[in-house]
């Protein structure tokens, strides 16, 4: 008989096994919610699926009486725009810093201590400074994301550049390359897929800072809504919002992976070996 450690699930079985915990969790929730409702029909802690649906229809499919907009989609849009801005700016800075510091010892000597120092500051601790300097508008929120994730990404990319075998750099020089040639044709293309990796890894952290900034000062956004309805214990809004954030995070991670696989097949096939 095959030993347990040698048994491999088929594709379908793997999918079913993966979905099982989610289904179980939904059933447990349903049961717990019914039990609490039976005791107190006004219970707000574990709203029924019908109540959640009603709340979401109100937010996502009914125009707001005041502005005529759909709050759920407006929240989603605002949050995604902030996230995209923050992550893009962070990616550009991190790529520039990581590449230059990794490739040029003189730059590394000048910039590494600063990056290390910045990465030691807890970003949340300087959030008040950001609000004072940049006001309560969009800038402060984007800057918080940038400050939160840039040092992590820059240090990661620096490490990836340094890891590129020095043989390649020597070889390029024997082929007539000057420093910019090496940056542009040898290091940058090899770092590009690793930049996508770095973005995927820091996306969770970026969401953390986004929600935190929105919770403190915002007039829309997914984090804003969650912290707004918290006052009324509106679990029927908070729970689907959290699930929605998780889904957005999952989809963006998957899209980045696909983008990387399409653009850099050599990188992913190398990794598989």
């Amino acid at each position, binding site marked *: 008989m095959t030993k347990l450690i040698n048994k491999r699930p088929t594709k379908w079985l793997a999918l079913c096994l993966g979905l099982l915990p989610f289904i179980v969790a939904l059933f447990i929730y349903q049961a717990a919610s019914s039990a609490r409702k039976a005791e107190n029909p006004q219970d707000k802690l574990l709203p029924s699926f019908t109540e959640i649906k009603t709340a979401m229809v109100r937010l996502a499919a009914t125009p707001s009486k005041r502005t005529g907009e759909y709050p759920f989609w407006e929240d989603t849009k605002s949050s995604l725009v902030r996230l995209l801005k923050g992550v893009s700016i962070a990616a550009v800075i991190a790529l520039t810093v990581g590449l230059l510091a990794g490739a040029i010892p003189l730059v590394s000597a000048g910039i590494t201590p600063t990056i290390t120092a910045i990465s030691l500051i807890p970003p949340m601790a300087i959030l008040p400074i950001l609000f004072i300097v940049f006001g309560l508008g969009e800038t402060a929120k984007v800057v918080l994301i940038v400050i939160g994730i840039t040092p992590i990404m820059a240090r990661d990319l620096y490490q990836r550049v340094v890891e590129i*075998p020095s*043989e*390649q750099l*020597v*070889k*390029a*020089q*024997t*082929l*007539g*390359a*000057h420093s*910019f*040639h090496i940056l*542009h*044709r*040898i290091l940058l*293309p*090899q770092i590009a897929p690793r930049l996508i990796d770095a973005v995927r890894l820091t996306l969770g952290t970026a969401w953390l800072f986004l929600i935190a900034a929105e919770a403190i000062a915002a007039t829309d956004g997914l984090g804003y809504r969650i912290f707004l309805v918290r006052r009324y214990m509106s679990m029927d809004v908070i729970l689907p919002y959290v699930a929605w954030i998780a889904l957005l995070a999952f989809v963006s991670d998957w899209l980045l992976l696909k983008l990387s696989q399409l653009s*850099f*097949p*050599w*990188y992913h*096939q*190398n990794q598989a*070996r």
Partner: protein
Amino acid sequence: MTSNVSDLADSPIAKGSASHSSSSSPLVIANNIVKRYGDHTVLEGLNVSVNAGEFVTLVGTSGCGKSTFLKMLLGTESPTEGQLLFNGKPIAQEPSPERGIVFQKYSVFPHLSVIDNIMIGLEFTQSRVWGRLLGQARKQARAQAEHWLQAVGLTDAKNKYPHQLSGGMQQRLAIAQALIKRPSVLLLDEPFGALDPGIRKDMHKLILSLWREYELTVFMVTHDLQEGFYLGTRLWVFDKDKEDANNAERYGATITYDLPVSDMAYSHPVTQQPTALKSALKSN
């Protein structure tokens, strides 16, 4: 894939015919070279001169300084004392196009296809700012690269990426990549050390045929004495000629044997070795 080169390399005995420009002044001259790292002397008393067209193989135990000397020729290490002349001038202290290199590993660029890997050497020199050729210039460079693909027998793998190639094919690629620059010397740092014996034999044929056809000057570090005898026209043995029992790092290695490799040595590589040489290399 090897068929197109094997006919060129049928008889390695015919080598030596490539000592074409030996009448001119030596290509490489080493004058009393010493290399130290702190108190640790790696090399000392190194005096040699090499003419264009020679195929020099460097053998010796590990840590004997043969790779250090190759790195001096490459420009990534410099002598502590003494003079290393290349074409009559002190050798450049950083890698440059007149000295091609093939390492044991990591010599090719993983993000470029085979043809792009070969072409990039032309792109660097012909496009001084961006290192990227377009249009007609690219077509010409591509045609030139295809010639070298054929020379090393990689035409069928033109559009593959290095990770799709076997170890031997990757080394063929690394050689073609270096040769497209037509370097004055080709430096090989244990290029076949990681290959299977069968593949290594094919590579020996290839490198000899390329050496003869393109009149190369080759320096090759190897830990395989047989390989050194088989390929070289000249074999250098790196070893210490004096020992300090209390301080192993006091004296450095030097070239203890500088052997012209005759055809006879080739046909009976083991029996023709001097006994002292054999004992000097017993750890191999």
